[in-house]
């Protein structure tokens, strides 16, 4: 077990290094001048030359990369070209909203997905199954900006039930502001979770021990909840963990639609402006999050599925 964790951590570090190096190289290779991001599109040749010299934009990629890695090791992700705000400060400011949205969205999707998946599996082949499969297919194929815009327009504007986007202050107000973006996020993911939950449950329901449970006279609902659900969970946990990891880098579209001050909206703006320090900084956060969360998911899998706990024999 310890060996496995050490090996996994080593691989994880390698993955993180690869991701940020690739991002760095892609940003540097773009045919856009970072000096123009700093000075605006109408900058004069003189001032551009000055900034290029001051910020070493004309140095070779190797020198720029070395400089950047050196700063990174010292905990310095640099300053945004556009706003001159330190990237670590920016990420520190934006990560909490992003995590709130990610956790709320994934939790809603997981709960809703398992619930719908269970109903579909319980009534497989009949109308509730077909209705859920159809509805989830539609949700899954709806882009989040359409879903988000419709919810914002109908629920917040027409019905006046919730705020028109924003972040809110205080617990109650924050939750009110969180409902719509989290629901939008969840509705997309929920479809996927529901289908996976259904498939897994249908498989598990064919197992021998389920037949035993049935033959003992248990009601189908009890069979489903007590015996079938737990073995069906591991794939869902992995899915949810991967989603959480990716969402730690921000839900780009949903954050923009709902004015949620998270990392995703910053990333979108940074990409448009070729704001390299911000792009690489947020990518770093995402990479770390994916890796850490995947590791945790693997451990949870082991806990949920006792078969994975058996130590490997020397000859296997």
């Amino acid at each position, binding site marked *: 077990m310890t060996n496995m964790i050490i090996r996994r951590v080593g691989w994880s570090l390698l993955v993180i290094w690869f991701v940020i190096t690739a991002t760095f190289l892609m940003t540097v290779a*773009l*045919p*856009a*001048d970072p000096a*123009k*991001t*700093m*000075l*605006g*599109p*109408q*900058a*004069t*040749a*003189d*001032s*551009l*030359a*000055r*900034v290029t*010299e*001051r*910020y070493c934009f004309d140095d070779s990629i190797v020198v720029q990369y070395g400089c950047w890695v050196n700063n990174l090791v010292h905990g310095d992700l640099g300053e945004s070209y*556009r*706003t*001159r*705000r330190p990237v670590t400060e920016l990420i520190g*400011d*934006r990560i909490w909203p992003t995590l709130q949205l990610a956790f709320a969205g994934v939790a809603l999707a997981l709960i809703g997905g398992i619930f719908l998946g269970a109903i579909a599996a319980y009534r497989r082949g009949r109308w509730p199954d077909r209705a859920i499969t159809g509805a989830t297919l539609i949700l899954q194929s709806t882009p989040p*900006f359409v879903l988000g*815009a*419709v919810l*914002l*327009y109908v629920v*917040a*504007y*027409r019905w*006046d039930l919730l705020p*028109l*986007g*924003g*972040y809110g202050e205080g617990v109650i107000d924050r939750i009110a502001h969180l409902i719509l973006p989290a629901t939008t996020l969840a509705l997309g993911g929920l479809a996927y979770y529901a289908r996976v939950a259904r498939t897994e449950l249908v498989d598990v329901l064919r197992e021998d021990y389920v037949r035993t449970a049935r033959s003992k006279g248990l009601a189908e609902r009890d069979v489903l909840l007590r015996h079938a659900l737990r073995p069906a969970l591991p794939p869902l946990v992995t899915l949810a963990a991967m989603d959480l990891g990716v969402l730690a880098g921000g839900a780009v579209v949903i954050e*923009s*639609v709902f*004015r949620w*001050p998270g990392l995703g*909206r*910053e990333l979108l*703006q940074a*990409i*448009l*402006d*070729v704001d390299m320090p911000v792009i690489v900084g947020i990518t770093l956060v995402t990479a770390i999050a994916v890796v850490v969360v995947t590791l945790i998911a693997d451990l949870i899998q082991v806990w949920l599925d006792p078969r994975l706990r058996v130590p490997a024999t020397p000859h296997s």
Partner: protein
Amino acid sequence: MRWMLVLLFACSHGDAPRWKEAGGPPRAGGTLRVASYGGVNTLDPAIAIDEISIAALHPIVDRLVGYAPDSTELVPRLAERWTISPDGLTYTFALRDATYADGTRIVAADFKRSFERTLSKADSPFGPYLAKIAGAQDVIDGKASSCTGIVAAERTLTITLTAPNAALLYELAMPFASPLTEAAVTSDLRTAPLASGPYELARWDQGQQVELVRRPRFYDPARQRIDRIILRENTPRDVQFMMFDRGELDAAELSGSDQRWVERQPAWAPHLKSRALMNAFGSRMNTRVKPFDDRRVRQALNYAVDKQRITKLLMGTSTPAHGVLAPGAFGRDDGLAPYPHDRQKAIALLAEAGYPNGFSIDYLTLPDEQAEKLALSLQADLAAVGITMTITQVSPATWGTAIGKPSGPTFSIGTWVGDYPDPLSLLDPLFHSRNITDDNSTNSSFFTNAEIDGILDAARGEGDRAKRAALYRRAEKILYDEAPWIWGYHQVFNEVVQPYVRDYRPHPVWVRDYTSAWLDLGPDGEPVKR
């Protein structure tokens, strides 16, 4: 999101304002809530260059000179009066008795300090603006820390230029030219700007909202009638309109379709505020390479374009152009009209230039709605005269870098926004051959014309305003005929305000400037229900 707006209008929800004016003379008080589609980048006056940062900073910092409300006329601000020497080289400003929010007096040395900070800051876009001051180049190059051309005595500031230049006063009206105390220079101006103007920063939740409050001890109460101004950042225009209709905003920027709707509601129309902006949109052509090295081709393309269709497509957010100077601009030749839409003439000119069968060309454009409409409309127009145009969309950063190189794209969208209401801020950077370099040309049509260079040089140093205007009108005519761009349009900014927002109109320079407005609220400080 556009179809939703159609739905919104069809539902006749909010077809009349919920509020009305309380009535009475201008008075102080109230909170103004506005929003912007993007975020505020910085509140450091030496760095802020985008329109939203400047809109947030403008009420906080005062300058030597400013613009009268609803006008491009320069008026005294922190300088009570000024004189210009007969040779046009020396400007002497007499400062008024004014203080910062904490009561510290504003002295001439504060301006010298601020200008020198801007000059020595490599990442400030404004250093080159001040380079026309004697000794400034040495500060830029790091050879000196003090600029010899700026002399500060207690309340008298003297600025000496290397050559006469009419741009100086306009540039001194920009936010970067605000005073700074010694303590402020070393503080974090990005998040804590020094208040020399009518408002001070109360709070900034970065990326969410900026909150300004009226500051004490300001010399001009007429510019600070509103108690508190809240600017919500990153609010898409469609959402602004919904928030406005629900009474959560006092003013909303309008997209074209919203503008069309507001315009047609008799109850709303009086509260629609429009302003032609000092900018130019069109298509730039590299005049050094084929086929655009031939003036007849450039003219042909100008004739081929259907201006009426573009105006229609942009739905009230544009006015057709015959050059880069917008209606009402100083030096504009109002006698010129946009090139007529004349396909036969275009075809004849192309044939004359040796392209009887047209040609194929790539066009680089930007990923926003207006740019897309302009490109598609142009593509259709050019196809009708035998030219096949292929459109490529790139990010603003890539586009901005590419068009500044003579070896870059031959044909692309061209845009320019004036910093101040004078042709110096538009014609010089775009068409003077001095602004062509190997990497970063602002003259991105690489237009070289000795007569234009001569006129622009003469106009820059000309002290007589009428003579300057005449020179620029001549330049306009030459540029019109030479056609280094397909002249497109000038943007029109549209905003709708609640009925109780009084004496407000978008400013020709600052656009969203609420310092001359006041709120006509009820006795309890709340809007009065209709």
